């Protein structure tokens, strides 16, 4: 079925997960992602697959842990407060080297915050919100089509590197309707066999899935092994998009929904004759550090735009390594950056407006 259909992001993502071979879905209700468990509760049994509404997010991620340990493709979805509870399980998944797909349709925080769209969980997602020395791959869709396209990618990456892949969406993407193409695609990746899975030790030696390593030096050895794996991810899996960078005086860096707004701002600015461009990180970890570092050799000024008080901007700053200035513009708690505001900053920053003063917010 490769015709375009109009669907909201949450439902499109759910159907895409089914097409990507998700064997089991576990989840607990939370706004703004309730369409996903509702959709899955109907569609998964239709496909002869597993749906369980768990008693909490602690339990949901533990169910994913159990299903994944038997070699199945398992996923859960939630929103910010629920993702906080899942950090325990995500840390155990990392320790036990199990694949998992976790979708965070972010809302405003901290605390109960609100149910408005936000990008407030960037730190939690990219810094490994749970305990221990680990990483998760983080994919940031910016269209409903990408919500769809990133599901098979997420499952493949999780299986390939036996780790958690987080899909970091937000309430706008989850709720808005866009035309999408939903089709089952053959994976181009050569995925390793799940020869570690718990399937019953019939005729073979016992398999153990664990994260406890007590012998002297053994945990450090394990963590080095994880690191080697993460280095492969850093080398092979960085995704980003460049947009209208030719001769840019200011390079906007934004992801997800903020990147769509930034793209419009870049277009408006270009119409006014302001040389602005955009780099859109698609993987937030691994972050396109090298790309932005190289861009900083060429372009002198960067503007990070986010729906939070300044989180990704730290990675941008690390990437430019002091070679360029980095400005920040953010809205938080459900606020959404306006195209005009971004254009205003670009205007001032490029010198065609009111000069240096009052330019963005230097962080």
């Amino acid at each position: 079925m490769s015709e375009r259909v109009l669907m909201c992001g949450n439902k499109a993502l759910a159907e895409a997960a089914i097409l990507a071979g998700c064997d089991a879905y576990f989840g607990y209700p939370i706004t703004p992602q309730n369409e996903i468990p509702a959709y899955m509760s109907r569609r998964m049994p239709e496909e002869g697959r597993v749906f369980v509404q768990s008693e909490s997010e602690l339990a949901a991620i533990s169910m994913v842990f159990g299903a994944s340990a038997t070699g199945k493709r398992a996923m859960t979805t939630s929103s910010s407060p629920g993702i906080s509870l899942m950090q325990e399980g995500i840390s155990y998944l990392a320790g036990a080297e199990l694949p998992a797909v976790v979708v965070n349709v972010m809302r405003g925080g901290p605390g109960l915050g609100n149910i408005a769209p936000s990008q407030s969980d960037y730190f939690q997602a990219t810094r490994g919100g749970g305990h221990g020395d680990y990483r998760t791959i983080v994919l940031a869709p910016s269209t409903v089509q990408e919500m769809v396209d990133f599901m098979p990618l997420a499952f493949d990456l999780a299986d390939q590197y036996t780790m958690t892949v987080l899909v970091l969406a937000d309430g706008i993407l989850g709720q808005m309707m866009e035309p999408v193409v939903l089709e089952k695609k053959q994976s181009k990746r050569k995925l390793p066999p799940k020869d570690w899975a718990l399937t019953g030790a019939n005729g073979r030696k016992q398999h153990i899935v664990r994260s406890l390593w007590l012998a002297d030096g053994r945990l450090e050895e394990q963590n080095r092994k994880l690191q080697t794996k993460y280095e492969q991810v850093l080398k092979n899996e960085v995704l980003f998009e460049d947009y209208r960078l030719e001769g840019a005086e200011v390079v906007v860096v934004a992801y997800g929904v903020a990147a769509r707004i930034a793209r419009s701002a870049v277009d408006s600015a270009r119409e006014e004759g302001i040389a602005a461009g955009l780099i859109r990180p698609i993987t937030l970890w691994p972050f396109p550090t090298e790309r932005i570092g190289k861009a900083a050799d060429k372009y002198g000024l960067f503007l990070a735009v986010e729906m939070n008080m300044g989180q990704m901007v730290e990675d941008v700053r690390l990437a430019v390594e002091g070679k360029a200035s980095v400005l920040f513009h953010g809205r938080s708690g459900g606020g959404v950056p306006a195209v005009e505001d971004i254009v205003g900053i670009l205007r001032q920053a490029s010198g065609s407006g009111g000069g240096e003063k009052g330019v963005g917010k230097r962080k």
Partner: protein
Amino acid sequence: MKTVFARTAVLKDCSTHYCPGCGHGIAHRLVAEAIDELGIQGRTIGIAPVGCSVLLYDYIDVDCIEVAHGRAPAVATGMKRTNPDKIVFSYQGDGDLASIGAAEILHAGHRGEQLTVIFINNAVYGMTGGQMAPTTMLNQVTTTSPKGRSAVEQGYPLQVSEVMAVLPGVVYVERTALDGGAGVRKTKKAIKHAFELQVEGAPGLALVEVLSPCPTYWRMPPAKAMKRIREEMSKFFPVGRLKG
């Protein structure tokens, strides 16, 4: 010469890390015997808790997973729902099951998950050094109830089996005691039955609560610990079949 007692095939040929007189070693053997006798070693998955028995997989020779503190019934749910042909059991202490994992065990029972749960009630947190558990007896001195547990301050010991037995999704609950030969034999029978039910596809959760000695943190010799189960613990935690 006739062999009257031998190592169970499902038990690995090694010594355990347990303290002298600890009940975990006995309970492990009974679980292994049940798996062996039912011929399900090749399709059983065991779940080790956080607690003294975290290294369960070093002793019981089946596929095993180690999970976060208390989450075993949720992990088991994920496994059994995706693998209905496998026999999935969790083995959990009283801190793990009755405290931090109270929600997970209650809801696994509530949903009627087809699981076997072996619940070792030794009335203390063993692994962390003998703190008070929800199941600690009144007046029992632990490192965090130095004056003895008081009903007013810390509540009464939690009777998990009684709570679980009222859930329609729970098909079998029995409380047994590792307090001597007869108690060990009864425990064996109960554990085997709890596995049998899952093998037969009984429509719900089977739980065996095993009153188990912890001489180290009860600060008494092993024989006296068994006597304590008989004379003191089983007064508040009566042994017998509660359901099924």
